[in-house]
């Protein structure tokens, strides 16, 4: 299947006008598959972390949202152990007018503003609600441990 014009255009724009703190690079053998890196937002437990994600555009994109998942281990109430993300625009609030760029920005924003009221990882959310300080500490620790370039190999 030929790559739709929309995907080509989005890819070009991601390459030519990258969003600060976000990169998405398509695989050469499958242009619908992207390697994504998101820098953790400052003033968040994820600051200085570089989180790897994988992003896949399904056949009926943009009618359906992209499939996206964290590869880097992260302590976040809306991301489960498998890296799946709970984000409304990736589910019900998806609109074909949204794009890879906007979705990645949303994820970056999600890192800055965890939403334990709509959790995907119940235990993390519980910790977050009961003892936010501890949770943030864990998150910071995990970021250091898993999302810091020097520690990447340990993963």
């Amino acid at each position: 299947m030929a790559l739709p014009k929309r995907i080509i255009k989005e890819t070009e724009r991601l390459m030519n006008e990258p969003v600060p703190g976000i990169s998405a690079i398509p695989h050469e053998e499958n242009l619908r598959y992207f390697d994504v890196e998101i820098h953790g937002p400052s003033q968040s437990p994820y600051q200085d972390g570089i989180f790897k994600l994988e992003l896949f555009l399904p056949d009926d994109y943009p009618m359906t949202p992209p499939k996206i998942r964290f590869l880097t281990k992260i302590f976040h109430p809306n991301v489960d152990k498998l890296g799946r993300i709970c984000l409304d625009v990736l589910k019900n609030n998806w609109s074909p007018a949204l794009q890879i760029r906007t979705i990645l920005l949303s994820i970056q924003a999600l890192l800055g503003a965890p939403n334990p009221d709509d959790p995907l990882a119940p235990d993390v959310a519980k910790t977050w609600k009961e003892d936010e300080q501890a949770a943030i500490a864990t998150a910071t620790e995990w970021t250091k441990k898993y999302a810091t370039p020097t520690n990447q190999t340990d993963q």
Partner: protein
Amino acid sequence: MANAGSQEPPSKRRRFFSDADEEIHTSLLVPLSFSSPTVPRARFFENAVDRHDQPGRAIAASSPSALPVARAPLSEQDVASSLNRLASPQTAVSALSESASTSTPFDQTTFESFVGEKIGADVLEILVETCGNDIERAVNMYLDGTWKIKRKFPTLPTPNRLSASIAVSRQQGNLTIRPHDSFRPVPESRYIGAFGVEGWATRSGHNLLKHGDVIKIERQKIQPPKAPATKGQAKLGGAQSTPRMSSAARRVDVIVRFTDATGQELGRLAKDTANWVSTLMDQRICKFEGTCVYAPERLRTNDTVFLQLKVSLLRSAFFGRKLQTADNRTTGLFQETETSEEKELRLRQVALVRLFQEIGLVPSRGNAAAAKDQRQGLLTAAELAENKAREKTKSSEKDNPESSPHEDEDEDGEELEQDQLDSLYKKAQSFDFNTPEAEPAETFAMTLRRYQKQSLHWMLAKEKDERNEDRELSMHPLWEEYAWPTKDYNDKELSQVAHHPTFYVNPYSGDLSLDFPRQEQHCLGGVLADEMGLGKTIQMLSLVHSHRSQAAIRAKESSSSVGSVNNLPRLPSVSSSVGVSDAPCTTLVVAPMSLLAQWQSETENASKEGTLKSMVYYGSDKNADLLTSCCEANAANAPDLIITSYGTVLSEFSQIASKNRDRGGSRGIFALNFFRVILDEAHSIKNRQSKTARACYEIAAKHRWVLTGTPIVNKLEDLFSLVRFLRVEPWNNFSFWRTFITVPFESKDFMRALDVVQTVLEPLVMRRTKDMKTPDGQPLVALPPKRIEIVNIELSETERAVYDYIFTRAKRTFNANVEAGTVMKAFTSIFAQILRLRQSCCHPILVRNQEVVADEEVANAAADAAAGFADDMDLSSLIERFTATTDDIADSNAFGAHVLGQIRDEAVNECPICAEEPMIDQTVTGCWHSACKNCLLHYIKHETDHHNVPRCFNCREVINSRDLFQVVRHDDDDDDKHRGCLGKEIRISLQRLGTSDSSAKVVSLIERLRDLRRESPTMKSVVFSQFTSFLSLIEPALARAKMHFLRLDGSMAQKARAAVLNEFRESKKFTILLISLKAGGVGLNLTSAKRVFMMDPWWSFAIEAQAIDRVHRMGQEDEVKVYRFIVKDSVEERMLKIQDRKKFIATSLGMMSDEEKKLQRIEDIRDLLS
């Protein structure tokens, strides 16, 4: 000599041309086929004998010695004739006087110096024979060609038979006054074979008949003389006009008796044999002599007797017929039912064929056999059918000689394919690319293609009657050549007759001839049947330029050299038909009304200025006095070309007809004998009984041409009408045609019929097709490519509901009728429902439209009543739902200017969904957010399918699918020039989605046209539909899209049509021509268009192809794209399959009866509804 005269005794047998001493011992011993004894022949030659003791023969016989040497080859015949022939005293005297006068020999040298060329010995011989010493006459005869007639009839019948001599005098014209002309050696009868036969005794007694006895074969004693019998029959047939009756009357009369030498009846021939033997005897074709092979010693009534019959052909067989044919020709015109003459002819033919079969005589030369081999592959199917038919004919012949071959034997509607037509055209179409070319006259302003020059040469040759040598030599293909037997059944040598080794039989008519039957064409014109688009008009115009009459040339010369003697006006020469003046310079063109203008403009284009005067003679323009302007006296100023319509011809004809056909009074078309007449689109006269056809037949002209791409539209009779117009003997006689073509064809004797048709077509027709290739592989005419694309249409839900409703209903009706076995009865109603179904694919409104116009008008009339659609609540509510979604048209006034501005600005953005830039068919939601139309619809569908409420992709407002508006930009409208300067002031308007376009098909059409307009703003397109009411629904959609369109349909008058066509041709902007499939079928030239939109499929693609070819024809310079709109999952899709299955439906070939056609349609319908 004396021997010959006294040859009375029954034991003697005479043979043709035998000399005296041979005759003495020619009494032949008749062996039985299975036993030895031989018996002298009974006498059988009454009438010849009667005349044999005439005086003067001896003198005549002595004359050869006095004749000049040049006559030598004939002298032998003369002797023979003198011996054999009854010679009246006068003729003997004349022969004597001739021999006296010719003692001064005919001076060949003098003669040759007169005529200026060497003369062959045979020619000379004829001339001397005919003219004696009269050199002047001989020269005249040689130069005017009448000597050929003499040659054609080297043997002539005796004057003792009145009918025969009349026939001769007709053929010979003035030459027959010389009595010795009729003195040609034709033996009274000649042996051709023998066969065994059964008879049964009518007497009983001892030794009545024994092996070897000679018996006489006689017809019933009560048999009245032949001539009155024929007349009586003719009366009978004529009065009651039922051939059945006369044949019933005839049936009684087939008894053939055999008698002993004293004339006492012994018995009768078995009926099977008697049936045809009686015919041969009655019609004086054969003489039969019998010998008994076996008879019981004591003969009892009803005992079987075996006889051997010896057959000799009578001289009258060769000459008696001609007159009858002539009679037939004059009286039998337009008689559809079989006349008594036709019946006799048929009986004779059957009998002859039977006879030849019995005696095992096979043709030594015949064209049919050879032709069969050639067509073997092509017509295997037809052959099978033929064999079947032949068997049937045979068996029915045995049972009943009256069973005519034209009786429809069965009705198994075998499907006939295009092959049939192909093979018809095969000969005429076997175009030789090396035929000579002719350059058009200098006054012709166009350049001809090679093949056109070749046809010009052919046409010139036809008009000037320069026959092709090959053709002249060929035997008339209807005839077969037979060699006279050299040995009799007893293997005894028969003496041969000099110059007569063979005789000729026409198995189609039963005609016999001693003369070589040449294929003759007397017609000084023909059929130019090139396929559409090969430039028939141009070729014809080149002929008009290149061949002008002597009178016209003289007129030209005289007008250039004023004052010369030639300038004196000549008296109008009156041709044979009283009151008709010659129009020696004028060619009359008769064309369909819609093509008059085209003819005129092409004439102008094709002629150098001032070299060809043309005028249109039509309607109010026809106040001209043709008689005065075209007659010979006015040759210098006469129009060269008069273009008129079939309607005009008809109306003038009717006027004259009402005045008792007195041509003298009129001053129009029928007052003139034109130099040439050309019928364009001549299939207009395919129905020979139509008034138009009859009117055209009456047009008088020296050269007659017809132009048509389809000489055979759907019946073989179509061709007849052309031939009738061209006056091609003998095919222009309908009974002749019917007997030899229609009847064999209808009785499934395809081979024979096709054979004959090919024969008719070959010398008459020039036909090239577009897919012919020159020897180097180049197409005849290189047309730009043509691409046909099928556009699949998805019906909207509401449309689908209407369609499904009608479909279910039609299917139910059909199945119910199938079960009840009443399909044929309910045909109209079923067909009407299918029609409705097809219409609903186009536009649901059509279904309830009262004035739907389709080609099935008949079905349509009954449609509403039969299908009960009129007061159908369910259906109307469905349609209402459909119209509810379409009828309200959103208008730009309904929106604030700022909204429009915003929308307009957004238009240049990319589509948020597909990133297309700018958006394709920008469409806005109720919350004024824009996307491509398809993206938006796709999105809404996607959401709905996933049970989500569709929300705006932008603001997440719930989208109401009815509140979608397409943005119509008026920047691509026809006033292009404003676009640049007005820039941002582009007008836009919103149209509620689905409204502007009403039905899915129209939507798709408009979309494509929009795209087209964007890409090529000046391209012109043609939109075809078979439903004119559908065209009426397309019109408003085009108007809304601000597209310029024109319309052409059958309801328009000629002037209006011409105006439309002209406007379309001249238009420089994006223009669409809406045209009904029917109106677009004929001759139109729409090459200024490059796109064709076929809105609905027809049963046979051929019809659609014809419409497409209006655009894709000669003169088209660019690629033509054709879009066929087909609704997915509908009858239309299945119609395509039916089209594929039989590229050419048999129904359109006219080879099926109406019933069969219906059956065929029902099969189609079954497929459609499956």
